[in-house]
């Protein structure tokens, strides 16, 4: 059973998607560690270390995602999480922006997968299975 850490980063309190992600991933057989809303990078990283997680799924809905996610990959590596998969999804930037450009910015920051608004967690399960193995 693979372990994944989920949560909502920064000063973001959008809790609905987070609760649903927990439910859906659990149903799909993952061991879900949910650190909830208002979580810092440290919270994610600590949870991943403690639980030996294979992936961190960062949610950001409120628009400050770009600032909140800066250096997350570097911070993971510094903390010794060398191979962990980093996903990010929700409404990760402010406003309706061209998604290709947004995706690139987040990939440059070291995220393995970047999701646009309107993608529901069900749509990402296949990616998880591919990246982590069934």
């Amino acid at each position: 059973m693979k372990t994944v850490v989920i949560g909502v980063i920064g000063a973001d309190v959008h809790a609905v998607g987070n609760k649903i992600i927990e439910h859906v991933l659990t149903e799909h057989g993952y061991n879900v560690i949910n650190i909830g809303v208002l979580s810092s990078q440290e919270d994610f990283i600590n949870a991943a270390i403690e639980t030996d997680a294979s992936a961190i799924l960062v949610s950001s809905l409120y628009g400050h995602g770009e600032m909140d996610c800066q250096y997350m990959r570097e911070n993971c590596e510094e903390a010794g999480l060398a191979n962990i998969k980093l996903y990010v999804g929700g409404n990760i930037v402010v406003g309706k922006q061209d998604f290709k450009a947004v995706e690139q910015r987040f990939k440059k920051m070291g995220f393995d997968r970047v999701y646009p608004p309107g993608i529901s967690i069900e749509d990402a399960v296949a990616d998880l299975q591919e990246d982590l193995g069934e």
Partner: protein
Amino acid sequence: MIENKKMNWDVFLQMRERVRGQWETGQSPDLELDRTVMALKAVPEHKNFALKLRHAKANNITMIQPRAGVAVLKEHIALLQYLETKGEADFLPSTIDSYTRQNRYENAKDGIRESEKQGRSMLNGFPAVVYGVEGCRQVQDAVGVPVQARHGTPDARLLSEVIHAAGWTSNEGGGISYNIPYAKNIGLEDTLRYWQYADRLVGFYAEQGIEINREPFGPLTGTLVPPSISHTVAIIEAILAAEQGVKNITVGYGQGGNILQDIAALQTLDELTPYYLKLFGYQDVFVTTVMHQWMGGFPADEARSMAIISLASTVATLGNATKMITKSPHESQGVPTMQANAEGLRASKIITRMLREQSYPSSKELQQEKELIKQEVNALLYAVLNAGKGDLAQGVVKGFASGVIDIPFAPSEMNAGKILPARDAEGCIRILEFGNLALNDDIKAFHRDKLQVRAAQEGRPVSFQMTIDDVYAVSQGRLIGQPRRKG
């Protein structure tokens, strides 16, 4: 221990010193009370939020107000001016950014700098505290209609000071409604006290003959909240505000989706709030209602979003809401451009105009739904008051802890989080899992029966899956979530 008692003026003033020390802009001499009173007295009538609401209610008009806020002052002003002229907004907001909401002013300041550098807003709102009285006054002076701060700030004391000093005549929020949906582990005692402070400030201005509007945040988590629950919170916050001397209160409700239930909700909110205010001894509070256009997830498609905006406007107007908070066709994507925001406003405005003279006739069904909401609110209010042994503020703290009052999908650990809502076969929001919610067995049976009818129609048991389907439904173009097909 928190009590529903008017804050002693000296205690207020002492606290005020500390609050002003929270950030550099708090030190401004513009925050001396003699100056703020003068500034507020200079606000012309048509730019006074409270008075314009009185006018709207007297004329039975549904006024419209967007959400809007960007990081950089100049851009923010341009945005509001655009929404006033091109969107025909009756009231303007300044939606505050999320760092400011968490009192992380340093982050907000960085956000301004970063935004100026990048040439686009990196903040999801206007950092009013960082700009201080001076900046907020520029906003106030640049527009022709009343301005309100809209946020989600558990501790909005400094923010409240700054905006009122700048002449903004309305402030959204409350000790419950800006805690439970907006925080994780801030105590209710704390937020109730913070909001007693904000209300006391408004009460002080009322004593100086300055009417300022206060608006508890009605929709809470915006996600399948049963009307009786949001009504109970709104009424409690109205009472708490009235105790601090607030005289002009707008109670809110987020569109649920079933038209009849929504109309019943708007009517009962307008009836129950003054009723309970009087019952608790506050005779001279002027009450209006605000309906929020659909607060849950929107469809990605702009045409579909415009349809929801228009449907919401129909409901708000027929339900005689005094005000309506509008959405934009970009809702599911992100903070809207000013053009998209104005599109939402114009669609809303034409509906409120076209339906102004119309009403939703009374019917047996409407009366039943209203009766149900009233019974539920009565039961919940009673339970909260009881939990506080007669003190409403205490009751809030204890009531949320025990779950006799409970809000679905809330992030706060102060909330029991045990209830689950779902739609019935007509799309009305009912309750599927009650936790410890203080409703009697008859009412619970009514909810269960209603959900059972839907479950039978869909050939599946009543379950959390229904709730999930309902959360997704509107964004997928339905009101009632459909069972997913297998495979």
